[in-house]
Every structure is written in C-alpha cells, then in structure tokens.
C-alpha cells in the first residue's frame, strides 16, 4: 500500500499533471488538449478545477505520508503494539485519514477526467471520448 500510494502521487504529479496544466498557444480556440484551460473556460466546469483539482492535488499527498507512518509503526512494534493503546488509536485515525484523502483524490480525478479527459502528447492517448 505504501508503494502504491507513493506511485500514485508521484506519477500523478510528474506524469499526468503536466499534461493537465499545459498552456495553449496564444489565440487557441480548441482547448481539448488543454484540460485545465478547458475546465476554466466555462462557468459550468470551472469548479472542477478551482475546487476539485486545487483540493485533490494537495490532499492526495496526505495518503502516502500517513500510510508510510502507519506501516513504520506496525513494522517497528509488531505484536507489541497491543501494549500501546494511544499509538494504536493514532495509527487508526491516520489510516482513516489516508483512505479519506485517497478517496477525495480518486473521486475528483475521475470526475475531472470525465469533464476534461487528458489526451497527452502526439502518440500517447489515455482516453478517446466523443463529445456528448
């Protein structure tokens, strides 16, 4: 879970996010290759960026930080964790927070991709949807 959490945020921040925030050339009217600007171009979709992406891009990092700590405490203490009620409680809360953070990021990621699919460069295409 730790590896997956770090892989998710690192690939998201350094692989997908640059495509999302790419700037269109001046005067471009077709924003289909520029998801952030596409979302911001309409009052009906701007919220997916200003609320969804703005929250998701930061809150998602709480998941790997929290779950790394949880894994460390479990490995360090093992069965002895049963003797540390307060540590167990804190670990449980951080685990839940990690799930909540991942849930927020996943929900907004899916919804943003529904509204402004990332298509990437010239050869890589992550989605191939038609306008409804």
């Amino acid at each position: 879970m730790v590896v997956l959490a770090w892989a998710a945020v690192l690939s998201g921040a350094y692989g997908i996010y640059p495509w999302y925030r790419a700037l269109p050339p001046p005067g471009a009217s077709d924003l289909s290759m520029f998801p952030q600007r596409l979302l911001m171009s309409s009052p009906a979709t701007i919220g997916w960026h200003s609320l969804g992406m703005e929250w998701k891009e930061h809150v998602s990092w709480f998941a790997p930080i929290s779950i790394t700590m949880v894994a460390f405490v479990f490995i360090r203490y093992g069965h002895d964790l049963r003797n540390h009620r307060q540590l167990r409680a804190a670990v449980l809360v951080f685990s839940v927070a990690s799930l909540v953070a991942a849930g927020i990021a996943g929900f907004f990621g899916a919804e943003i991709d529904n509204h402004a699919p990332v298509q990437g460069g010239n050869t890589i295409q992550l989605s191939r949807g038609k306008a409804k």
Partner: protein
Amino acid sequence: MTTPYNTAPSDNPSLTNGSGAAAIFSAGVGCFVLAVLAILTDKSALIQRSLVFYKPTGPLSGVTTVAILVWLVTWAILEWSWRKKTLPAGRINAIALALLVLSLIVTFPPVGDLF
C-alpha cells in the same frame, strides 16, 4: 514445560512509545507544512515562483518536495531523540491529529481562500 503466554495488554511494554510518537507527530507536521505551503503559494507570487522545482509540474513540485523533506527531517530528529523514551503519547497524538485535521480543512479551497 510450557511457557505461559499472556495475550492481555501488559503494563510494561517491551518497547517505549517514543519511536511511534515520533513517527505520528512528524506525519502530522508533514501534512500541515504541505497545507501551509499550498496556501502561501496561492497567496504570494514570490513564493509561487520560488517553489517551481520542476517547471511542467509548477509550484506543486516545490510544495510537496519541501513538505516531504520537512517531514523526513523532523521524523529523523524526533526518532533519534525520542526512540528510547516513554512520552506522554496522548498529548503528542492529539497535536498530530489536530495538525492532520487542520491540514485537511485548510487545503479545501473555499477555506484556504479565506486566508
């Protein structure tokens, strides 16, 4: 001869709670630093520019890199100084959880925009 095995929690844990408290507290600090940097980046063009460590990702690269470094350095320092100690874990955990909850709240854009 059989060795009795007590499954009930012991009053004398074999490991001190310092190491766990260090990990928990530093995780709270890491999340909080990330949240504060996210807000500062939104408010200050100077900070925004200075946190662009990788241009395609923008200031998010600096915000997360700095937060992770602060988290890991804090963790290393606390682990080194707390690992053999028994600490008031309740108070430390409460602060860490407060930092975590605050982080979740202030990164929510409508709340972050209030600052």
